């Protein structure tokens, strides 16, 4: 019997159900926008780390960053029907996360967190505890300095430096102009240097 005849006899037998985890973002967005929560779960799992990292760099502590990241995904779910796919989903999520952070940051002073990753202990074995500690202290100082920048400068520095977004993409996210983005980036770096320069 040929494959064609098999198709004619039982077409449903050839229906392939692709696992959600194998679908691309746009297919998952379509499914989630139609109300499929499992599809949205996959999107959350796929993008949660980058969204969390944006938030962490804004507030420099885990508790607030996790709250902000959660809030960003709730808003993303609410706004899925408005996502038309003109930009990548990640850019759209960055936009939401940055706006959530900008709104929260304006109402709350960032709290610095001194807790560091466990990588610190691995480094200590290799480089010596003292060297690792100095490096870690410097990292804490840099994160604190970034979290203390004015919010537009902070957003620009974070998106440009850590998420490799172009000036135009950042301008889109911040509803700003390329010129303003460059100016903010410039002032962010100058201020960062000033703050770090005054650190002991």
């Amino acid at each position: 019997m040929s494959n064609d005849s098999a198709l004619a006899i039982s077409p449903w037998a050839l229906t392939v159900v692709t696992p959600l985890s194998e679908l691309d973002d746009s297919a998952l967005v379509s499914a989630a926008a139609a109300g499929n929560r499992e599809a949205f779960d996959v999107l959350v799992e796929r993008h949660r780390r980058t969204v969390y990292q944006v938030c962490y760099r804004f507030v420099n502590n885990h508790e607030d960053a996790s709250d902000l990241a959660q809030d960003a995904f709730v808003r993303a779910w609410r706004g899925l029907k408005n996502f038309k796919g003109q930009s990548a989903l990640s850019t759209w999520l960055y936009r939401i996360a940055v706006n959530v952070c900008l709104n929260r940051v304006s109402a709350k002073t960032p709290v610095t967190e001194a807790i560091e990753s466990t990588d610190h202990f691995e480094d200590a074995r290799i480089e010596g505890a003292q060297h690792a500690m100095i490096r870690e202290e410097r990292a804490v100082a840099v994160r604190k300095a970034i979290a203390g920048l004015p919010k537009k400068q902070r957003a620009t520095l974070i998106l440009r430096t850590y998420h490799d977004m172009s000036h135009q993409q950042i301008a889109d996210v911040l509803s700003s102009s390329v010129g303003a983005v460059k100016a903010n980036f410039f002032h962010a770096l100058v201020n960062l240097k000033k703050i770090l320069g005054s650190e002991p």
Partner: protein
Amino acid sequence: MTHLTPDELIDAMEGLLSEARQSHLAACEHCQRELAVLSSALTEAKQVSVPEPSPLFWLNFSQRVRVAIDQDASTATNWPAWLRWQVLLPLGAVAMIILGLMISVPKQEGNDDASVSAALQAPVAPEAPEALDRWVMLADLVGDIDLDTASAAGVTLMPGDAEQAVLQLTAEEQQELTRLLKAELTRAKS
């Protein structure tokens, strides 16, 4: 030639400076120092990573998002916008203040009714059963609350809240409020 602008310094740092300006940069110590400051700050920033949370956090995070979405959906669907507590509480407070005034102020003979009409300056709305039901529900919600109880619960009324609340009502709702207030005035007098 003028020094590099902030835009140009960013372009220079990213290798996008025009040739004409590059020749200025090559000859200008001031601009070279500025560029070095920017590059050094960027290099230092790039070396700093975000501490990775525990794997357990990520497992819980997805669950937290799910729960938050459920809660968001349940709070968003139940009540019409004008029946939110931010609107209801000031409205209830206004109603209680008016009732309190009616009880404490001695009755006057004459044209009270006309003065109330003039003050409110709004026509009386026809009876609307749906709107009436809403006002009955509103009365049920706030009817047993006095100002002391509300204050003790932390509900305070700022100057202008009542006006804001009334301004949020539609024209139809304002007419209904007018009708109810007039009915209360009439009832208090009788």
